[in-house]
């Protein structure tokens, strides 16, 4: 148990239309039976953290429905455990959320009430499987004020790097400079936006920023205070995805078809937990063909499925061909339908004989409940 550390998950509001029209992006279904937030929640639970706050911004009912009491993560505790924290607009400046400081200010009572010494801040839309316990240990050992987890994205497209906050480090891994989504990146060390610090420091940063009308934790607090603080980078060498666009959502999802990534992200030492739906096993029909695909329970597959990811309860009728696609819960693909590079939200129904083709660079996304 990591009784000295609390976790705070900030659920952002990056839009991935149309999937986020009905839910916060942290609640996006991914890898068949999961929601993105399952990864960070499981990481925290696996580190033995027993007090986790989930700060929500907007559109959070689907997130609340998913997390509920926190039981799957063993976070349904008598004291503390999992806390879903809806936005507190009165405490936030001008009643709107401009940045993460506003979110944190809105939950300042909860932070204050918690009795842990350290806090881990993380975003809800990151996919990774990491030993967070080791991060806190390194933080303590370095006598750091703030520890920022990063991954060296060497070899990644420069245009992709501009999605991240980049950390310039010296040879002792101390942070020399920070650039938020720079146009011309000077380094490949991308912040995973996981920060460890003493809870008291976080409280004073939030208080000070709020008082000044500042709203961004990195730009307004860390960068400005960098000179006087010991900020250390902690390198993570595993797989890490930030899901902030349809392109990154599609890429992240499809990479689960790669055994190496799959086995790292779902390793048995640090399992990823999720809410169970008690679906029966998936049934394959007489003419079913299914290869290189990730299939959840409760599906009925009678057609062809290639290079695809199916959530729970999907039905693929005879003669239908689904390729390179992501099909979410309870969608129904009728006879003879042809799909390639599509992303279907829940309960989409494609009637007999239709053909829907997207492109790898621009998958065709269809919103929940659509019938075509």
């Amino acid at each position, binding site marked *: 148990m990591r009784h000295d550390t609390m976790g705070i998950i900030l659920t952002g509001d990056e839009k991935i239309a149309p999937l986020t029209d009905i839910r916060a992006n942290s609640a996006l279904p991914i*890898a068949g039976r999961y929601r993105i937030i399952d990864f960070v929640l499981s990481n925290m639970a696996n580190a033995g953290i027993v007090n986790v706050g989930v700060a929500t911004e907007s559109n959070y009912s689907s997130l609340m429905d998913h997390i509920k009491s926190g039981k799957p993560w063993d976070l349904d505790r008598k004291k503390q455990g999992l806390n879903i924290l809806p936005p507190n607009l009165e405490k936030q400046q001008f009643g709107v959320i401009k940045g993460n400081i506003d979110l944190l200010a809105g939950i300042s009572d909860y932070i204050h009430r918690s009795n842990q010494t350290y806090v881990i801040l993380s975003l809800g839309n990151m996919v990774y499987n990491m030993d967070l316990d080791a991060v806190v240990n390194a933080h303590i050992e370095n006598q750091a004020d703030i520890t920022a987890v990063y991954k060296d994205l060497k070899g990644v497209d420069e245009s992709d790097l501009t999605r991240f906050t980049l950390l310039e480090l010296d040879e002792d891994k101390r942070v020399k400079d920070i650039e938020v989504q720079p146009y011309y990146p000077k380094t490949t060390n991308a912040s995973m936006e996981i920060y460890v610090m003493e809870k008291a420091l976080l409280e004073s940063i939030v208080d000070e920023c709020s008082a000044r009308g500042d709203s961004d934790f990195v730009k307004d607090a860390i960068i400005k205070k960098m000179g006087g603080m010991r900020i250390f980078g902690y390198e993570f060498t595993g797989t890490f995805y930030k899901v902030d666009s349809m392109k990154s959502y599609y890429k992240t999802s499809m990479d689960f078809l790669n055994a190496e990534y799959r086995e790292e992200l779902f390793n048995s030492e640090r399992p990823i937990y999720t809410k*169970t739906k008690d679906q029966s*096993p998936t049934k*394959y029909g007489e003419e079913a063909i299914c290869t290189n695909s990730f*299939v959840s329970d409760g599906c009925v597959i009678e057609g062809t499925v290639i290079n695809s990811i199916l959530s729970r309860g999907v039905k693929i009728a005879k003669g239908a061909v689904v390729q390179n696609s992501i099909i979410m819960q309870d969608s129904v693909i009728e006879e003879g339908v042809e799909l390639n590079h599509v992303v279907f939200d829940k309960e989409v129904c494609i009637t007999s004989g239709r053909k829907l083709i997207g492109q790898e660079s621009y998958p065709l996304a269809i919103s929940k409940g659509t019938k075509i």
Partner: protein
Amino acid sequence: MVSKNCVAMILAGGQGSRLGALTKNVAKPAVPFGGKYRIIDFPLSNCVHSGIDTVGVLTQYEPLELNTYIGNGNPWDLDRSHGGAYVLPPYQSGESGEWYKGTANAIYQNLGFLEGFNPKNVLILSGDHIYKMHYGEMLKAHMESGAAATIAVMPVPWEEASRFGIMNTDESGQIVEFEEKPAEPKSNLASMGIYIFKYDVLKKYLTDDERDASSSNDFGKNIIPKMLADGEKMMSYRFEGYWKDVGTIQSLWEANMDLIDDPPKFDLNDRSWIIYSRNYALMPHFMGDTAEVTRSTVTEGCSIEGKIDHSVIFSGVKVGRGAVIRDSVIMPGAVIGKGAVIEKSVIGPKAVIGAEAKVGVNHESEDNPYNSKYCTHGIVLIEGGAEVADGADIRKGSMVQIED
């Protein structure tokens, strides 16, 4: 304390010795079934869907796995503040204390538990049947008839009737006679081993039965006949649906096969009557480039690279490239090596089948050292955790066990 209208007691202490090596280390109700379930999930889920929220599970034989599986009852929504799931093993008390001597004695020893809930009725179930049944409707019929006991019955083929406990009833459904395995059955209504008793009547008969040293303390042999003889009103409750006793390797195999018929004889993909089970944190199953799966079910945690037809693949099973599986039941965590061929077999949990091994492919032979009386109809059983060597040839009708 608020008293309960009905408390269920599941008899889950039996060894199920006819399941051979499958029940060497676990009680029969804990035997895996249907891809991601265990046999006891069926009565437990039925209870919850029937509005029965207090369930005692009576364990005795190899209880560890079953106890751990049931835990606090949360997977079945049976973690309740008042009621819920209780595992009830035999216990020592004062100067007495003994093993459960029979089904009736097991309930007798737990009258103290029942007393705590002061139920009006007690539902007695067994932990070794596969079926979906609304006990609430049976309870309603029981209460409306005012019977001392109501027994669920189902019609069985006449030629098989002599294998069952047969209830002879009048037109109103009242039971007039009970015959255990009659040579010449007068009716084809078999007892399903599901009883609802008025609690006060049950308590009296169990207490009397305990005093009778000659009794074998069994519901079918002693309690039911005694109540009939005393003229107590006993009603039958007719059930028409899928019901299967999975007491033998052949019937367990067959019941699994019933799930993959098209349409299935027994449908697990029924959102109005979900069978709950304890879930483990397993990822969706992965179908590799060389996977070919037809007429089968596959579930979480599996990784399939071989060819599978007409089989039930349980959670976390790995099937290697070039392996061929037909008409088989592959239990949780089993690993099937590359190029292995498996036909009409039950592969126990976490068993490992070596590469290019043949299981259940070649015909029975009298000199086969693995021949077993439990493996009828040519079915092969590989004990959970056993390893079959690369290239081995396990003939039909074999039971392969771990050597002690």
